[in-house]
């Protein structure tokens, strides 16, 4: 007798379709997976392969057909007599900058965190928000403020304040490594403050109480309990800062250009601007490699740290140390940081936008022309910046591109969270989580180069996207996925399945469940998942500098263009506008979450 599998098979398929129709989790998961493979993995693979194949226009130099396999680029950048100048020098500078600014920021930031959270210094509540402000500003705000003060005769254009006052700052103070490290340190201190401060607050007070009951002094408690418990937070902060510093572009670009001071990110930019695609691929690969190694180290450290998970408990012994006569001094230190990190740079930038000649503070020298003037005596930019249509075009581009991209990544992030927490295929969940997290390991400038490599030419059904806003939009979405997916996964994991299953039992279909149950519950999570990337996108430079063209200028690239053409006042004005938007956005996030930035960063 023959077996009859057909009715059984048919029933199985019918059943699967019916189940997929009513619970499309797996379908959504597969779609997301395909999207991420295209938006995240493909560009990275594309640029990594670029370095092994002869690029357009290089055929004669390499001595092989375009598209042939070659080690020419690796050989030239890493091994040739030029390699020291092209690669190893910038690599050394990159690592020194990142390591030094990380270490100084760790020391100063930890000290400040201790003052803020464990002493009776004056104005601690105020300082705990005020000292975070530099984190909300684009890092090159400080670079511009620095040049406004220290710019010397080495390059043309308007001189800096020091020069105007008759002092001639030497090149090492005006440009290059020293200011780059100082400024990067300044911008990383708030991050250390947030991460270490969070760690300090999260340590269960009972762990310290208990040691004191057993006879340990303040010093012993700090040495044997607090610092060992903080170690994971400290190490993680160090690695994150190092990884971020490797990819820093704008600060070395603004401060290094005049003296040909190169780091890997500026070398990459130079290679791309001069259309050396193969060389750019090598630089991008190097930056990615350092980034990936740092993040892997961080993941390893975090796994080690999981052993340290503690049950939170009550216990509210006053953990603050009385500073006695040092109280005023401590407050002074914190105040100094606020002045150096916030007041001074912003004041300098603002004053520079309302003076004709930098550094001269007599009344005739002040003007509002650079903001609202008309028919100025300049070659281009004949109106004040607020009357310049390019500014409004750039502002509109910034807000619309970054806004739409953030909205898209926020929604995608929630969907990732939905699939990861619901799917019955652990592999699908794991793959989505890892892929969405990948851009985190790739510094923005390298990621942008990867996008250029994949999307500059037509590939299959996708037309060349360079010069359109789509390449910016897609790159931004991909770049924001790590944060968006993490917050989406956290939100969905917290919610659990019950509310949705209850709705299902009550007869609600998938769309109804999404719009009536999941959507409203996750409203706040979505708002945060959109706003946080929006803020970092608005002040970000690295993606745009590579992918934007004059027709798709955003505020950041517009202001860098103004710097290149020496319109200092206008450039500074644009930076102030960016700072204002970024600060407003962060402020909004804090108001909405009531938890403060620190908690968003901790996870």
């Amino acid at each position, binding site marked *: 007798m023959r077996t009859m599998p057909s009715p059984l098979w048919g029933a199985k398929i019918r059943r699967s379709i019916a189940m997929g129709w009513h619970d499309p989790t797996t379908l959504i998961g597969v779609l997301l997976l395909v999207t991420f493979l295209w938006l995240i993995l493909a560009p990275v693979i594309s640029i990594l392969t670029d370095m092994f194949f002869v690029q357009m226009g290089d055929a004669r130099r390499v001595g092989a057909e375009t598209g042939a396999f070659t080690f020419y680029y690796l050989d030239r950048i890493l091994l040739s007599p030029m390699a020291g100048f092209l690669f190893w020098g910038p690599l050394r500078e990159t690592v020194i900058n990142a390591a030094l600014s990380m270490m100084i920021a760790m020391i100063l930031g930890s000290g400040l965190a201790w003052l803020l959270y464990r002493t009776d210094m004056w104005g601690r509540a105020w300082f705990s928000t005020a000292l975070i402000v530099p984190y909300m500003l684009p890092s090159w705000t400080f670079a511009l403020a620095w040049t406004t003060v220290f710019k010397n005769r080495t390059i043309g254009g308007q001189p800096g304040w020091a020069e105007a006052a008759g002092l001639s700052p030497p090149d090492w103070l005006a440009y290059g490594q020293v200011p780059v490290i100082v400024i990067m340190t300044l911008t990383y201190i708030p991050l250390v403050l947030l991460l270490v401060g969070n760690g300090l607050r999260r340590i269960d007070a009972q*762990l310290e*109480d208990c*040691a004191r009951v057993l006879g340990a002094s303040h010093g012993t408690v700090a040495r044997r309990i607090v610092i060992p418990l903080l170690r994971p937070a400290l190490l993680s902060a160090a690695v994150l800062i190092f990884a971020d510093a490797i990819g820093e572009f704008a600060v070395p670009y603004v401060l290094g250009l005049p003296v040909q001071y190169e780091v890997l990110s500026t070398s990459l930019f130079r290679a791309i601007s001069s259309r050396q695609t193969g060389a750019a691929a090598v630089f991008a690969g190097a930056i990615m490699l350092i980034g990936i190694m740092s993040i892997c180290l961080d993941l390893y450290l975090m796994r080690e740290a999981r052993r340290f998970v503690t049950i939170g*408990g*009550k216990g509210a012994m006053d953990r603050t140390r009385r500073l006695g006569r040092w109280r005023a001094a401590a407050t002074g230190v914190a105040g100094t940081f606020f002045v150096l990190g916030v007041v001074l740079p912003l004041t300098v930038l603002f004053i520079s936008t309302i003076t004709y000649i930098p550094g001269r503070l007599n009344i005739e020298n002040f003007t509002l022309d650079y903001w609202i003037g008309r028919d100025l005596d300049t070659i281009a930019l004949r109106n004040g910046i607020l009357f310049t249509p390019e500014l409004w075009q750039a502002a509109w581009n910034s807000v619309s591109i970054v806004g739409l991209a953030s909205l898209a990544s926020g929604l995608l992030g929630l969907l990732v969270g939905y699939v990861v927490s619901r799917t019955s295929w652990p592999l699908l969940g794991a793959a989505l989580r890892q892929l969405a997290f990948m851009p985190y390991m790739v510094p923005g400038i390298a990621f942008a180069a990867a996008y250029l490599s994949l999307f500059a030419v037509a590939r299959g059904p996708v037309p060349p996207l360079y010069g359109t806003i789509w390449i910016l939009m897609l790159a931004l979405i991909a770049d924001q996925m790590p944060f968006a997916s993490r917050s989406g996964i956290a939100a969905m994991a917290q919610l659990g399945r019950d509310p949705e299953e209850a709705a299902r039992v009550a007869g609600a279909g998938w769309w109804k469940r999404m719009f009536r149950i999941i959507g409203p519950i996750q409203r706040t999570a979505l708002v945060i998942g959109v706003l946080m990337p929006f803020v970092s996108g608005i002040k970000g430079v690295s993606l745009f500098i590579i992918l934007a063209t004059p027709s798709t200028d955003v505020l950041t690239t517009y202001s860098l263009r103004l710097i290149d053409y020496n319109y200092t006042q206008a450039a500074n004005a644009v930076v102030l506008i960016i700072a204002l938007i970024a600060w407003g956005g962060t402020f909004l996030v804090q108001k909405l979450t009531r938890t403060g930035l620190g908690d968003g960063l901790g996870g």
Partner: protein
Amino acid sequence: MPTITLDHISKSYGPGPAAVRDVSLQVAAGDFMCLLGPSGCGKTTILRLLAGLEHLTTGALHVGDRVVDSPEAGVFIPPERRRLGLVFQSYALWPHMSVAGNVAFGLQVQRMPKAEIATRVARVMQTLGIAQYADRYPSQLSGGQQQRVALARMLAVNPDVLLLDEPLSNLDATLRLEMRTELRRIHQEFGTTIVFVTHDQWEAMTLATTIAVMKDGALQQTGTPDDIYARPTNSFVARFIGNPPINMIDAASPLGQRLAGQNAIQAAIVGIRPEAVTLTQSGLPARVLSIMPTGGSWLIDLALDADRLLLSTQTRPNLHNGQSVGCAIAPQDIHLFDIHGTRLPQPALTGSTVPQSIPMRQTQEDLL
């Protein structure tokens, strides 16, 4: 071993009602004292004050003849110099140290020679049955094992007094029973004075030699477990101790008036423990509303006209719902409280209104 004296102590955190209000209490050497009360009654605050983790607002704390905290005298001995042991509700084990490291910490702080630390740590871990986990980390232990490590850590330094903050509340029922036996054993073996905070009356009754009942930061009653059960000083203590809870009858109701007897004028509430009610043929007429088995004993809900009375018995009742029965209460089992909830003297045994309520055992046998 010193006596601990709490001399009119108060603690307040800024404006609003104080967390601890004018508490005076003595913990004798070798005592197992239980601070019992609902959550938020200030019992944990008292423990933290004893340990020195909080500062007194007024009053004085003595350990032996040493003043350890007194705002009036300007004395405050910090926690690290009080020689007390405190076991936290969350155990507060240091996650970055091994079990042995946790237990050894207190001795290391005292700068004890290494060899001696090793022997003492080994001995105390042996006693508590955690010697095999010496090299593990706290997160690799179960709740019960963590609890033992927390205890061992404090016992290792051989404190004069051991303070325990709800140490059993994070354990499951079986472990709780086991640890309760363990605590009794430790108390006997080490002879340590123990002050134990709990909201669980069953825990307090089974463990303590003395119970101090607290409410809203104020001490309600101190006494032996039997004493507190048999002679609650006010209606709060009467209600808080006992499971199933005491019957509270309005003294103005027919049943209340009858039970209160001559004291009916001052009495506002009449309290009757469920197990003090017995069934008789001829006592107060009642009707059975429902019978609830609780495994090993039975609760019977009785209606006496408009009043309700819960009865608890160890014998299987041979009754059905709606059946008419009689019930009786011994005069010494009647608790009277005035309008402020304060205990009144028990009604006199003599008098014409009472004889009916004397239990009649022989007839009860027929009914049950």
